[in-house]
């Protein structure tokens, strides 16, 4: 009874976007209250829909999804595009964490943005539109609708990164930075979006439809040329690379931190950047048609994870550290999906059910990590926002010793840091170990399995780095002697900010335990043994005993625990106890590696070089060609007409005698010619 109204979930924030946009300044908190009501309504409806779905027949033994659609428009030749909703286990998980975190961040924004005055109208209108985009993406029943909402999110991301792109409270340089970061984010993700769009064309051509129901139908997949599917999945993955900031398009995300911290938490940590991972997870039935594609997915994830983690090691900006860690964790998710899909692809080819089940576990790991990450990363960003709000700087060197002044913030952030570092029994621990376990397992199969061994090593090293840089951040901020900014800080933030932090920290600690109570049953995917149709959610999980047994009998689990603890301990020695000088390892910031990290492995230069050479450089050439060659030809033609007239005009002497002479000569010439002609023609 509620599930038929799933389409309302994104429509509510959309309507509230219009209301805030038109009347925001006349409403309480410049539209803040309205935005919260909208998010709350969406959350309530989401909960009802999820509850109804999970207790309904479709999930419990049915096809595993509920979908309905109306025709949007049709293209001649039998291509039909629809608007509708598609609810399955993945949708449920995404809906829950997106709407819940959005609501908490909206509440937090009231406190964080209180000094922005009339600008809040714009802020709350844009975040409402963003929420509509995210929820619309999650419930959409076809790729085209997904793409539409995907782009709407991109627009909101652009607008919100650029929130301070004019009249920045900190002056013109900050405005310029925000404007430039917004541009970069839009254009770099647009590169991925264009690839996504290319994928849509391939899929639409191949399947005559973009509805998930039709695309994931095994009979339809079997009828389509596999090469087309491989091409389509590669193009779709290009979209995911852009949106989820994967290598080599990862570099927009750190710059995106120029936006307000709430925006970073909402868009660039908890929700929008997950869209790429979601797209891969959603398209699993297509992706698993080729093991090679999945290998590429896993490899990109692994490279991204370690590359981003390395750049977080020495960064001094609290938000940038978190941004790199977001990229790194997104790499984990993509890595897990790649490993799982690799196994599933091989399993499906060989008809090996055990391998398919192992692949499903990889999928579970990826989605589960996405779920956990949303909570602890939102918590960490909001915590950092609380810190920034209090001391007015993002530079961690000026902080330190904030723990005493900001008790709640420091405790909640500690929980978040422990979670992301993989401290045992915190949520990050469960999902991260599942990810690594899947990758490890994938290395045992197939001709290219060894590559997954390398990816696993990258993952383990990343886990160690994660623990180190997260606690480096925590110690630099909250422990040690009081920094310059700490002395001037305002103390603890208002309760509109700390209450969301506390709520999030409960999830950041506890969300991992959900897997012991059957969450894995909702977020797994498996081809039906009879029909071959992919079913998301098997309605029964493995349960607590299975996981605890599997985790704690696996020696590698202990390896990662030890590495995480080691990372935390090193961070403690360096940044809290100060018994080890970090400068020893980088020659006081002079080593080549340190500089490479500071320069972000030269990615910004690479982007600049490409855009200047292949964008502006060619454009200048085209412009020159246009002005001189093409327009030059046009002007030259008209010039030659004018010029020939110029030179011919001197025949007009103005002397009547001359004219008369010419006329007479002409007449005489014609007369003589006529006579000669007649003579030779033999006339007369």
């Amino acid at each position, binding site marked *: 009874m509620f599930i038929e109204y799933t389409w309302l979930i994104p429509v509510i924030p959309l309507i509230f976007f219009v209301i805030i946009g038109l009347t925001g300044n006349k409403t309480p908190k410049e539209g803040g209250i309205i935005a919260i009501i909208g998010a709350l309504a969406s959350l309530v409806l989401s909960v009802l829909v999820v509850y109804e779905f999970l207790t309904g027949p479709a999930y419990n033994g049915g096809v595993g999804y509920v979908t309905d659609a109306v025709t949007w428009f049709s293209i001649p030749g039998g291509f039909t595009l629809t608007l509708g909703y598609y609810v399955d286990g993945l949708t449920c998980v995404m809906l829950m964490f997106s709407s819940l975190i959005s609501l908490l961040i909206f509440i937090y924004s009231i406190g964080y943005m209180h000094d922005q005055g009339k600008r809040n109208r714009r802020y709350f209108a844009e975040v409402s539109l963003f929420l509509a985009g995210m929820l619309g993406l999650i419930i959409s029943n076809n790729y085209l609708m997904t793409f539409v909402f995907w782009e709407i999110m991109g627009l909101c991301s652009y607008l919100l990164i650029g929130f301070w792109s004019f009249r920045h409270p900190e002056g013109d340089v900050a405005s310029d930075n925000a404007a430039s970061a917004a541009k970069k984010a839009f254009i770099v993700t647009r590169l991925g979006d264009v690839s996504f769009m290319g994928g849509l064309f391939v899929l639409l051509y191949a399947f005559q439809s973009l509805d998930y129901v039709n695309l994931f139908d095994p009979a339809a997949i079997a009828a389509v040329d596999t090469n087309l599917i491989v091409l389509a999945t590669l193009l779709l993955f290009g979209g995911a690379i852009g949106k989820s900031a994967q290598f080599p398009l990862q570099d927009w995300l750190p710059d995106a931190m120029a936006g307000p911290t709430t925006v970073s938490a909402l868009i660039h940590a908890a929700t929008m950047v997950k869209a790429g991972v979601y797209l891969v997870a959603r398209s699993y039935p297509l992706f698993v048609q080729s093991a090679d594609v999945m290998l590429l997915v896993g490899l990109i994830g692994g490279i991204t994870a370690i590359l981003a983690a390395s750049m977080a090691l020495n960064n001094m900006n609290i938000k940038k550290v978190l941004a790199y860690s977001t990229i790194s964790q997104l790499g984990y998710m993509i890595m897990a999906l790649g490993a799982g899909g690799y196994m599933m692809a091989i399993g499906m080819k060989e008809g090996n059910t055990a391998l398919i089940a192992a692949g499903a576990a990889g999928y579970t790991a990826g989605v589960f990590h996405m779920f956990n990450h949303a909570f602890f990363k939102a918590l960490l960003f909001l915590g950092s926002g609380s810190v920034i709000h209090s001391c007015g700087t993002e530079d961690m060197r000026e902080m330190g010793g904030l723990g005493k002044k900001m008790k709640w913030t420091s405790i909640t952030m500690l929980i978040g840091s422990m979670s992301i570092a993989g401290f045992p029994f915190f949520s990050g621990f469960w999902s991260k170990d599942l990810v690594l376990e899947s990758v490890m397992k994938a290395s045992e199969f197939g001709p290219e399995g060894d590559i997954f061994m390398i990816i696993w090593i990258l993952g383990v090293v990343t886990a160690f780095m994660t623990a180190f840089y997260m606690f480096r951040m925590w110690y630099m901020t909250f422990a040690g002697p009081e920094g310059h900014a700490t002395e001037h800080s305002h103390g603890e933030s208002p309760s509109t900010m700390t209450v969301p932090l506390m709520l999030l920290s409960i999830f950041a600690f506890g969300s991992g335990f959900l897997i012991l109570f059957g969450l894995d049953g909702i977020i797994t995917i498996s081809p039906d043994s009879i029909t071959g149709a992919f079913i998301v959610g098997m309605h029964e999980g493995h349960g607590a005993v299975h996981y605890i047994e599997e985790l704690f009998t696996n020696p590698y689990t202990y390896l990662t625990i030890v590495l995480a603890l080691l990372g935390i301990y090193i961070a403690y020695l360096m940044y809290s106890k100060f018994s080890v000088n970090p400068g020893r390892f980088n020659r006081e910031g002079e080593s080549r590696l340190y500089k490479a990290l500071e320069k972000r492995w030269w990615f910004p230069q690479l982007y600049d070089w490409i855009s200047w050479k292949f964008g502006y450089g060619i454009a200048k050439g085209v412009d020159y060609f246009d002005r001189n060659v093409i327009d030059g030809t046009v002007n030259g033609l008209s010039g030659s007409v004018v010029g020939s007239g110029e030179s011919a*005009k*001197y025949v*007009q*002497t*103005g*002397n*009547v*005698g001359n004219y*008369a*002479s010419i006329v*007479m000569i002409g007449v005489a010439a014609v007369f003589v010619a006529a006579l000669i002609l007649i003579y030779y023609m033999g006339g007369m």
Partner: protein
Amino acid sequence: MIPIEFFLMFSAILFVIGIYGIMTKNNAIVVLMCIELVLNAANINLVAFAAYNGDIMGQVFVVFTVAVAACEVAVGIAILLNAYKMKKTTVIDDLTELRW
């Protein structure tokens, strides 16, 4: 009856004299007069052919031409008078304003 060749010869001589005058004379009045000669040379031809063919059409044209010539002289003299007012000359070689 006088043979037609006489008339044609006479008209040709008149025509050539007129053309010669147009091309060589500097005074605009003389040029106008020479133009009249040329026109009348044509008139003589028309009249002669009309008489020999017994067709009245040629003479009609002559009357028409005479009327046109009168108009032309009127306009020509008017232009000349104006040119003389502005330039104080009727020498054609000096009146070369209408050129490039």
